[in-house]
């Protein structure tokens, strides 16, 4: 479901073609109010990691989709939008910090246009340290929100330990249905605690 990410290659068959710009525009304009509502909610869940406003993250994602970012037609438009937002969120924080120091205001992120992206590995120790502090603060805020709920704490711990499926159910001492309910509760709790965007 989730589209490309600069760190994670999209799952696409070698023969699959990419969307044309016109197809992307048509696909975006065809999204229903419910889909747009989902995107708005998801942007709130992703923007804080990038230290961006949700609206800016969504705008940046739309803009890239209709200008330079590419995606296989195997991924639906919702997946393309979400993947693009995730990609921006995954790198924007350290870029923003660096740009502020360098005096530039834009957040240039290399296009995923099938060509070779500019090297993005030149992260300074300062950037790394700032990012680590920022991400640790995000986790602290999440932990504070679920401090009164032992099951959600176990869920977050399990997820952060890389547990999935049955192992996660065992960690929570529950079944598939109970795990699904806990996940939903976690998402709702974060949404209510951070109406302008969870620190994820």
């Amino acid at each position, binding site marked *: 479901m989730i589209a490309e990410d600069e760190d994670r290659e999209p799952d696409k068959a070698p023969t699959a073609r990419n969307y044309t710009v016109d197809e992307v525009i048509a696909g975006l304009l065809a999204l229903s109010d419910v889909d747009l*509502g989902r995107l*708005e*909610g*998801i942007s709130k869940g992703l923007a804080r990691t990038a230290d961006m406003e949700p609206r800016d993250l*969504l705008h940046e994602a739309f803009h890239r989709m*209709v*200008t330079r970012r590419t995606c296989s037609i195997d991924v639906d438009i919702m997946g393309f939008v979400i993947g693009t937002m995730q990609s921006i969120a995954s790198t924007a924080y350290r870029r923003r910090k660096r740009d502020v120091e360098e005096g530039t205001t834009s957040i240039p992120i290399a296009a995923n246009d099938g060509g070779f992206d500019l090297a993005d590995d030149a992260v300074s120790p300062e950037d790394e340290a700032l990012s*680590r502090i920022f991400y640790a603060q995000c986790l602290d805020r999440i932990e504070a929100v679920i401090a009164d709920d032992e099951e959600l704490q176990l869920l977050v711990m399990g997820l952060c330990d890389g547990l999935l499926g049955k192992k996660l159910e065992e960690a929570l001492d529950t079944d598939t249905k109970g795990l699904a309910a806990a996940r*939903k509760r976690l998402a709702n709790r974060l949404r209510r605690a951070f109406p302008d965007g969870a620190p*994820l």
Partner: protein
Amino acid sequence: MDDKEKLERLQDVVVEEFLAMSPEEVMEFTTPEDLESVKSNLAAAIAEAGRARLARAKVAAAADARRPRLVALTGGAELRLVRANDAVFDKKLTLAARKGSASYEADQTGIEEDLDELRRWDEDGDLA
């Protein structure tokens, strides 16, 4: 797993839960203002991209307009007329036909000798 990866795992849960919500649940927390904001955001992004495409097209058109035009000639008379009216073009055409090698004058003697020889062959043939 570092903190960034942990956050990404939690992000995935939030995203998946959003996608799993029923339309009624989604619309429960989506205000008309939220929807208008997303729609205007989308329209602005598409308009910006359109302006960028138009600007690129204008630059390309301007570059194309500066390229030398190709002139289609359909007959020998037309070509002779163009050559007669444009000395520079005539010179270029001659040079192009000669693949840019030395001037006509340098070869003139040799050409005249070849023509004489051909004429002689014709005359000999006629005699035979």
